[in-house]
């Protein structure tokens, strides 16, 4: 059987569940080899973090250059692997880093690229949801090795236990791919909560929180959810920019999205409209966010959220 490559998705040194989702889709096309870019000496411990997903082989490339030189270095090495393995397709997580790596790899290998896939068929037909989820598009790469980025949380992962063979390759990052250098890095502040794009449930707060995210966080914690924010909230400095959901923030498609004190501007909707279920708490019945709500509460978030938090805790205990 042919080989399909996935780029193992590590954020902050941790394997994300997107890796298993990528493998699930890639396994429809061919035997899955996960390419693992790790810091020097840490390939084995990183590989040990990949425990689920239909992965046949893990290919480790170690270098401190990946952290130091970012997208350019990852794209360079991944392209070298493509030349060596001649895969049927390459699948990468659809976030800022993944998409940029995919773009550069597409140029290097003169191959077509499709981003933001929500599904990929065995024949490499890609499904995308466009225009805020109002339109389904099917497309296919027509030249070169298909380079496809898959949105986290779009497919349900095959969570088989992995017992992959492990191979280590010595590949050098070409000097031309080291044009950008890291000075310092501050990992995202998650506060022990799941990563936003990966989370099954996201609870977001907007201007309606008036700067007090404690009720939003408490509700999120009762659900084991990630916390998101509108731009109004991140601009005001109430919540870190890295938590912004929307056109210029993260795109999320969790099982459940709870929008608290968010009006539903088109730019916010662009980042959450494909969520499976949407719950809204807003005191203005005219807020446009109600148009896309599966369950809407017209009310004050400061009275609804604490009660709902107690209600969820009571159910769970």
């Amino acid at each position, binding site marked *: 059987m042919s080989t399909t490559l996935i780029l193992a998705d590590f954020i902050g040194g941790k394997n994300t569940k997107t890796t298993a989702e990528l493998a699930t889709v890639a396994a429809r096309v061919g035997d899955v080899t996960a390419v693992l870019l790790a810091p020097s000496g840490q390939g084995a411990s990183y590989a040990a973090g990949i425990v689920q997903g239909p992965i046949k082989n893990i290919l480790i490339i170690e270098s401190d250059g990946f952290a130091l030189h*970012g997208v*350019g270095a990852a794209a360079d090495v991944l392209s070298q692997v493509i030349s060596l393995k001649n895969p049927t397709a390459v699948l990468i997580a659809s976030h800022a880093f993944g998409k940029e790596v995919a773009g550069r790899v597409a140029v290097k290998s003169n191959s077509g690229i499709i981003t933001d896939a929500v599904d990929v068929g065995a024949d490499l037909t890609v499904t995308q949801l*466009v225009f805020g989820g*109002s339109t389904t598009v099917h497309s*296919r790469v027509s030249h070169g090795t298909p380079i496809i980025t898959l949105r986290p949380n779009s497919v349900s992962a095959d969570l088989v236990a992995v017992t992959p063979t492990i191979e280590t390759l010595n590949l050098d990052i070409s000097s031309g791919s080291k044009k950008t250098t890291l*000075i310092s890095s501050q990992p995202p502040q998650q506060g022990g909560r799941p990563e936003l794009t990966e989370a099954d449930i996201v609870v977001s707060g907007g201007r309606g929180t008036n700067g007090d995210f404690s009720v939003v966080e408490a509700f999120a914690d009762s659900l084991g959810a990630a916390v998101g924010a509108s731009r109004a909230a991140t601009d005001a400095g109430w919540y870190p920019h890295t938590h912004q959901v929307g056109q210029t923030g993260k795109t999320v498609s969790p099982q*459940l999205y709870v929008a608290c004190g968010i009006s539903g501007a088109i730019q916010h909707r662009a980042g959450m409209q494909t969520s499976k279920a949407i719950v809204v708490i807003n005191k203005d019945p005219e807020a446009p966010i109600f148009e896309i709500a599966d369950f809407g509460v017209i009310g004050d978030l400061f009275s609804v959220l*604490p009660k*709902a938090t107690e209600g969820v805790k009571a*159910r769970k205990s």
Partner: protein
Amino acid sequence: MKIAVCIKQVPDSWAEKKMLNGYLDRVNVDAVLNDLDEYAIEEALKIAEAHGGNEEGGANTVTVISMGPERATEAIRKALSMGANAAILITDPALAGADALATTKVLAGAITKGGFDLVICGTESTDARMSVVPAMIAERLNWAQLTFASAVSVDPAAKKVTITRVTESGVDEMFGEFPAVISVVEKINEPRYPSFKGIMAAKKKTIENMDLAALDITVENAWSAVIDASPRPPRAAGLTVTDDGTAADQLVSYLVEKKLI
């Protein structure tokens, strides 16, 4: 410094978008300058102003580059009225429905021809929403890639650019040398409104029109193709309750019923 800004004319994000023969219908909707590119223009002007200006005889020039149909001149005029000095518009029948590979081949060609030090882009076009063009331009030109910047500082003497990059991996400080491709996020600045003087001045600025032949580029194939597009059923109308003290309980029951908890 010679600074280029890549801008795109896109369908108005408030307008309803539809597919026509497998492509986004760009003809029957209002078109505007991609709003994220306004931040790129503003940042280019700020960088120029901080290092000797871009007026007549100034130390810098800001040139906007766009690939798109004739009517993209509307978006270009806006950039010129904000204060950009010059503009290049690449239009060619062979570019209808161009994908990211074709777009970046063309933009990289125009950038090479212009001999720029810095290229500044938005992070995303509101229609394609790929966020790949800046990285792909950097790859094609073999320049430093400094993308998703929420802050940029430029040192023209040392030919060095330092940015704060904000992504899912956190907040990174990074640097590279000229020539470099930068993309900026909307947190970086507040784009200026064109002044009356700016609008008048823009009318006198010329837009250089080019086609593929003028750039000595061929786009021999499409790298990807749309098979079909279909509207999805609208979200079924949901249930809305007005809080009378019991809404939280109803909300929890909804979550239980939908097996979300």
